[in-house]
């Protein structure tokens, strides 16, 4: 059992990092699209109706999907002032508390986001703009995917806490 959990944590870390680093490509594309729009509009007088929406969709997807990577690297921003007051031993337990609170909050958030996601999956929601993409549908579903990755990675981090195999946690959590 212990072995199985350790393997889960190891695999989850890899998956999160893989997806997170893959988000680089989305950001790259987003930069290129925005710069290209300027060239198209100013150089060729041909503004597109898709550039804004496309770059927003890529960007937003990237920052939602990166959450596993951020969690694996303990990069969520928090205040660690009390660590100096309570000392490392007590703080170790605080860390478990922080992860459990995070897990609980994100789990409830996932429940909250579930119904809207199911609704757009059964009836596609469009942006209603000139480009009229399925951006709202993408956003409402991808944020669920992000939450699930977040939860899965938190689980991996909690396993590592229990098995005392945490890596570098000095950045906060």
């Amino acid at each position, binding site marked *: 059992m212990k072995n199985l959990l350790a393997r889960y944590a190891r695999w989850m870390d890899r998956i999160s990092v893989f997806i997170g680093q893959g988000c680089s490509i989305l950001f790259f594309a987003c930069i290129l699209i925005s710069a290209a729009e300027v060239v198209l509009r100013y150089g060729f007088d041909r503004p597109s109706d898709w550039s804004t929406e496309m770059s927003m969709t890529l960007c937003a997807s990237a920052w939602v999907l990166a959450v596993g990577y951020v969690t694996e*690297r303990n990069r969520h921003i928090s205040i660690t002032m*009390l660590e100096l007051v309570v000392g490392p031993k007590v703080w170790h337990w605080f860390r478990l508390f922080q992860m459990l609170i995070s897990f609980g909050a994100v789990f409830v958030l996932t429940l909250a986001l579930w119904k809207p996601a199911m609704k757009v999956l059964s009836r596609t929601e469009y942006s209603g703009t000139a480009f009229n993409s399925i951006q709202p549908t993408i956003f409402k579903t991808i944020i669920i995917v992000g939450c699930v990755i977040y939860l899965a990675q938190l689980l991996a981090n909690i396993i590592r806490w229990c098995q005392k195999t945490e890596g570098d946690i000095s950045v906060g959590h």
Partner: protein
Amino acid sequence: MGIEFITLLIVLSLLALMALGVPLGVTTLTVSLGTALLYFGERAGFFIVAANVGEVLHKYELIAVPFFVFMANVLERSGIAKTLFDSMAIMGGRFRGSVGVQTCIVAVVLAAMSGIMGGEIVMLGLIALPQMLRLGYDKKLSIGIICAAGALATLIPPSVVLIIYGLAAQVSITKLFAASAGPGVLLAALYIGYILLRVRLNPSMAPIYDIPETGLPFMQRLKFMKGVILPAILIGSVLGVIYSGIATVTEAAAIGAVGAVVIAGIRKELSWRMLRDSMRQTVLTVGSIIWLVLGAVSLIGIYNRIGGGEFLRGVLTGLDVAPIVVIIVMMLIVMVLGTFLEWIAILFITVPIFAPVVVALGYDPVWFGVLFAMNIQIYYLSPPFGPACFFLKSVAPKEIELQDIFLAVLPFIGLQAVGLLLVLFIPDLALWLPSMLN
């Protein structure tokens, strides 16, 4: 349960969770989920949180953040930043504190490029902070300079804060932009004065860059300008595309990102590895920022729905004092809200209530808008919810803790308050430029 009690409960639980080290995004999310479920029950509570959280992804203004972060990462990794600050240090010669002063000036120039706070702090945090530390500058002073000067992006035009204020208060955005430029430069001048004073009193805070070049006569030092040229061209072209009307502010940030890559190429420092690492760092930075915004935005929606705005309006109109005192009270309210809410929330809670009162008292809403934007400068820095500090933390060297940053910005909050008071009692500091335009 009264709204006073709920407000108190919300503030206390935010503070408690933050203090226990719960990530800030999760803190606001937990409080908003809790409030929503208790107040509205499951269906309505879930819906209000989901709707507001989902809306964050539609915020177009946010996409400039990864562009600026990436640009900064490329500049930093390619060595452009190091050369720039070396040049700046040499150009400053044996003048104590020159790099700190020049960082402030660079920040003002960058602020004229960007309309949102965040990108610039991250950029200065990546470029200037390691360099200032390398040159032996005091850690706290360096951090304070970067947070305070980097936040000027929304006081010096263009500014999203002023645009949204203009829309909410129905005030001319041209006038707001004209009025805010002076106070923006005023704050920068206060920061520079403070730096010069501190390093004079305590020379160890800003050592002289002790290499032979800094001792050369000024004309001979000029040839070290070359490190400044490429970054200056980059900044110049980003400003150029904005002010010539080629691109919007967000698009200009993308052009800057492409431009940074091109410059790294010119310096033969471009590699796949460097690009890949810069982008991975961007993913981590931006990924941690977005969860902060998510939680904060959902908390606003709920606080508004349970009558938070009404409550604050009631508190305000219950006062029986001189008009200028009412303005001061408004500023204090914004300041207090600024310690724990997001600026959009502060704006939407306060401006609709304050703006009509300001006009009724006989004051110029343009002046009030500038005061508001200056107060938002304080909000960026003030703990515990000080976004400028979070942004800097997301890129600062590991050994710099959030609490270090909070301590470092305190004197600068004082300077911002001084600037605010100056504009409060000498409205012409803001209003002379717009009145010239008429």
